[in-house]
């Protein structure tokens, strides 16, 4: 698909044609048209190197980890723990003890809610979130509210979809026990300037959890530079396997937290009278883990690092600017979420046409986007709309694909006009 190859200028130049060759799934037709995959915020696609790393593991190295003295178990353990080191380096954590494997961002947030917050929070203690959170950073705190009588406070957002910093400074106070914020909004694309929120939280002695699911595939993340206490993210949005995620936690906090699930691998010794829990991070990893998931995630990180997160961020920003301009020229199209700093996400509505119809018609044109509430129903309520259509881009997308999207939207208007 030579026509889809875009040459970009300067230091950000990526060989998109070569990159696209690495992603087998992109080279297919859907409904008779070449696939345009613009649903990356829901889940990214996988390069061959990730698929092959997972295959190779199952073909050559699989056995259970941390158990056997035999060769395969040792290989599996080395690969699994090697993945932990790759991830530690990628987010610049101090210690692999701070990297806990989970099923995804959702499980990581729930782990913090149940193991960090639940044991110590008192009735009336406050958890601060923002109005643009994904349900995964709302519902675990509502469960906690029921369990310990905590209070959930919500920082409002502006019409542009930016978290209101002034209101945040008014809301944080002596009862605030945790600030839990999205790093990047999945529904709108807003990049939240988390650094300044963290700075204020620190002045109040309030720990900070960041939901990094939408940030980590698109921008360099340094947990020490951010100064957050917890950082949660998912493998499948960053080219890795599904069912795999990471909780980064500061060691001092993780050490003090009780295990949240019991079972094998999270113990040192068990008798009916007394069980001694394992060290970090295995204390939080009960049962046989997603070994192939960790290995695949490490391969995904290797791939991302080969391209470079800075270059990915720069190229995706160009795509965002192009898409914002191109889509704004589609008659009747309104972009929802116009923050000054955005990831490559364009959420929009088309006058008189429901997003669901847009999604169906685009699919017949081979264009995959997400339509609906994006697991952020409070965001939809704020904008007083039932749903949006959302195009979310990755570094393997091209300007030509955005042109295809725009043409398909114009076609949509004709079909339902």
């Amino acid at each position, binding site marked *: 698909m030579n026509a889809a190859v875009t040459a970009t200028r300067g230091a950000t130049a990526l060989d998109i044609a070569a990159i696209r060759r690495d992603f087998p799934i992109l080279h297919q037709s859907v409904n008779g048209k070449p696939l345009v995959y613009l649903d990356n915020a829901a889940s990214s696609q996988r390069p061959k190197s990730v698929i092959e790393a997972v295959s190779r593991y199952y073909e050559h190295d699989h056995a259970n980890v941390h158990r056997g003295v035999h060769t395969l178990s040792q290989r599996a353990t080395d690969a699994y723990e090697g993945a932990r080191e790759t991830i530690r380096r990628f987010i610049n954590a101090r210690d692999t003890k701070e990297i806990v494997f989970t099923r995804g961002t959702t499980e990581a947030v729930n782990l913090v809610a149940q193991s960090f917050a639940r044991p110590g929070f008192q009735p009336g203690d406050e958890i601060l979130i923002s109005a643009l959170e994904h349900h995964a950073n709302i519902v675990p705190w509502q469960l906690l509210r029921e369990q310990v009588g905590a209070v959930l406070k919500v920082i409002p957002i502006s019409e542009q979809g930016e978290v209101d910093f002034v209101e945040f400074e008014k809301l944080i106070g002596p009862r605030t026990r945790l600030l839990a914020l999205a790093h990047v909004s999945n529904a709108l694309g807003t990049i939240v300037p988390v650094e300044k929120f963290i700075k204020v939280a620190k002045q109040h002695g309030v720990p900070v959890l960041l939901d990094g699911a939408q940030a980590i595939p698109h921008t360099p993340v340094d947990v020490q530079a951010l100064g957050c206490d917890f950082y949660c993210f998912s493998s499948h949005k960053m080219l890795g396997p599904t069912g795999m995620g990471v909780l980064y936690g500061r060691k001092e906090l993780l050490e003090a937290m009780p295990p949240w699930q019991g079972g094998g691998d999270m113990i040192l010794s068990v008798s009916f009278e007394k069980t001694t829990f394992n060290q970090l991070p295995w204390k939080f990893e009960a049962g046989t883990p997603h070994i192939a998931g960790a290995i695949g995630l490490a391969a995904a990180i290797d791939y991302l690092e080969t391209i470079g997160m800075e270059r990915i961020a720069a190229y995706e920003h160009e795509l965002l600017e192009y898409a914002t301009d191109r889509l704004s020229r589609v008659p009747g199209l309104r972009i929802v979420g116009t923050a000054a700093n955005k990831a490559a996400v364009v959420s929009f509505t088309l006058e008189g046409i429901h997003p669901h*119809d847009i999604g169906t018609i685009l699919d017949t044109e081979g264009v995959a986007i997400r339509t609906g509430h994006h697991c952020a129903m409070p965001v939809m309520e704020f904008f007083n709309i*039932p749903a949006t259509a959302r195009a979310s881009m990755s570094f393997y997308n091209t300007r030509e694909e955005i042109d295809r999207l725009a043409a398909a939207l114009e076609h949509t208007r004709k*079909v339902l006009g």
Partner: protein
Amino acid sequence: MDLKDLYRDVIVDHNRHPRNFGKLEPADVHADGHNPLCGDRLTMYANLEGEHIKDVKFEGSGCAISVASASLLTEAVKGKSKSEVKELFDDVHALLTQHDAAVDPARLGKLAALSGVREFPARVKCASLCWHTLNAALDRAAEPVSTE
């Protein structure tokens, strides 16, 4: 999978100009229907004369399929008995979900325009929302209601 099968002229027309749209006041029965995933939200109202639907209206918002389906429903069920409505729903449901549905198009009238939906499985719930909602309204009416 041809788009024109889904968005037939009848569907596009009923989406743009829904019939019997608005609140029925007073209404003997009404029920709300909501597909939270897509954001379709409808309220169906009906007035009854014995077992028969004397009048029916709907309001709400949703995709073209859900709005057109509700609009077509109101035209189709007016004057019918509750048991006839149930039979009609069974026919519509078969039309929406089964390729080999033995449904007589003559009996369905304009509702036959919904047959294209079965090629788009994700959209079946849009087309059937209004029928489930009307059923809920009629079922509730079957329960004895007291205001004392």
